[in-house]
């Protein structure tokens, strides 16, 4: 059969598909560098910078200077990232996803999360100019009610104020345009991810959700849970059918209050129980593993996994500030932490592969060589806390 005739037949056979099913299969299952994000998703930061996702290292542009479509559709950085991905080549934008420390079946990294959401959809990945919005990550304000000790001005307005840092906010006009874009695509979007700042205090989140008529659109929200039932966003969220609340909690009781500076464990628990009892929200626990909570990690996970029956738990390893990385934990006490985590892993159901993978990550991290002294860093990041860190993080003294 001649080459042209064969191609014509293939074209006719697959005229309803943008890629052939075989090409698409290999893209999603064989290609180890492919991610849907540059074709289908983007993240907006509080100062208007745009990235492919929360993992993406490069700034693609700023929505205060250019439109989203200008940033995403005809951008040499985006074209480079896409081309590399299609060729199964690691791109510098994606080193964190490429450097995944766990390479086991079933362990879901952020790229897997995004890919899985839309792998059943026909999107023209061969076209490196194509952009077809399917998910969005909105960190579009740093308004926050807490000063978490590992946070930074771009994600906490209180820290920005303390440090005298001015974040040029996303303009109202740009917020309107992004909102319009989401509203226009709301029936094909697979995830709206709201982070911050504290999303429950960010006014544009309320305005966005008010405009959405698709009550089934999946919404994922990171929250510190310090708001009450009269919160405007909460009231609107209750009208949506697919809400995932990702609750940030790194330790229990006093240490929780200390790490999430300004938080109150009693308020957290009260709201946690309220959500469990009064909503159909999915609950996920998100823990940041650092030198500050290394010896509390297991108690924290056990509390939510065993006592509160929350199986969806993510543990992210803290890399910044680097001094607070768990690898810098006191050398003589590291083995104790490793033993605790290994024991905990035996109590996790085998199907909870993500949690097991996350715990393995923690062991890898704490086993790494100590590189920095955390004491000066703790002095610095806790200067707004009411108590010196030595009184709460006693294992680090």
């Amino acid at each position, binding site marked *: 059969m001649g080459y042209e005739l064969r191609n014509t037949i293939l074209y006719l056979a697959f005229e309803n*598909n943008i890629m*052939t*099913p*075989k090409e*698409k*299969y290999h893209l*999603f*299952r064989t290609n180890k560098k492919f991610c849907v994000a540059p074709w289908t998703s983007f993240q907006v930061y509080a100062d208007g910078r745009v990235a492919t996702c929360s993992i993406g290292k490069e700034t693609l542009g700023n929505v205060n200077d250019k439109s989203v479509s200008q940033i995403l559709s005809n951008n040499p950085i985006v074209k480079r990232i896409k081309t590399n991905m299609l060729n199964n080549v690691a791109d510098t934008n994606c080193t964190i996803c490429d450097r995944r420390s766990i390479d086991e079946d079933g362990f879901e990294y952020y790229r897997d999360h995004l890919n899985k959401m839309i792998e*059943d959809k026909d999107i023209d990945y061969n076209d490196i100019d194509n952009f077809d919005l399917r998910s969005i990550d909105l960190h579009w304000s740093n308004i926050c009610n807490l000063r978490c000790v590992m946070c930074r001005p771009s994600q906490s307005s209180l820290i920005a104020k303390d440090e005298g840092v001015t974040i040029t906010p996303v303009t109202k006009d740009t917020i309107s345009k992004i909102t319009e874009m989401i509203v226009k695509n709301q029936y094909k979007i697979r995830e709206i991810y709201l982070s911050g700042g504290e999303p429950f205090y960010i006014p544009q989140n309320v305005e966005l959700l008010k405009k959405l008529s698709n009550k089934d659109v999946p919404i994922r929200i990171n929250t510190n849970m310090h708001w009450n039932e009269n919160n405007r966003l909460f009231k609107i969220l209750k009208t949506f059918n697919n809400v995932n609340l990702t609750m940030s909690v790194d330790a229990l009781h006093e240490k929780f209050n200390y790490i999430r500076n300004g938080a109150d464990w009693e308020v957290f628990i009260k709201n946690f129980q309220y959500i469990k009892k009064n909503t159909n929200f999915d609950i996920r626990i998100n823990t940041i593993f650092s030198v500050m909570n290394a010896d509390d990690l297991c108690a924290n996970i056990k509390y939510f996994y065993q006592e509160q029956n929350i199986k969806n738990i993510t543990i992210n390893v803290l890399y910044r500030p680097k001094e607070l990385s768990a690898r810098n934990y006191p050398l003589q006490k590291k083995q104790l932490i490793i033993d605790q985590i290994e024991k905990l892993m035996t109590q996790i159901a085998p199907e909870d592969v993500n949690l097991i993978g996350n715990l393995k990550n923690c062991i890898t991290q704490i086993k790494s060589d100590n590189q920095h002294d955390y004491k000066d860093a703790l002095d610095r990041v806790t200067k707004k806390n009411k108590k010196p860190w030595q009184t709460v993080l006693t294992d680090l003294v």
Partner: protein
Amino acid sequence: MYEKILFNITYGTECERDQDPCAEILLNQQIVIPKQPIKNNQQVEFELDLEKDTQYKLTINRTNHNSKNKQVLSIKSFHADGIDLNRVLDHMYFYPQYPAIWYKQQIESGNELPEKQKGWRDWGFNGQWVMNFETPFYTWLLKTI
């Protein structure tokens, strides 16, 4: 034809008394590989011509177990166009044909025997292993594994 997919199966066997298990492969009741005795590590390769948007049933008929001697037929590996389908096997069913007398004894003893077993790769009983799939094959594969 819409799609051509090349399948490759490697069998394993465990036999007493030199009586090999037999296998026959069918696609929607059409014989693809005729019934034949199977030796340990034997490979079988066949190409399927598939129509568009069609449901298919790939069946392996496992026979020649006389219920007296130990005899196991296994799928050691299963590939399509070079892709390892090991995880697909987890989703497929084997429908055992239990020896009639033994089956009656088991039921009378209160032992319930399943009509089908998910994920079985090692078949002691005669029976049918079935893989239901649809075209486009690769779209189905993406959904399945």
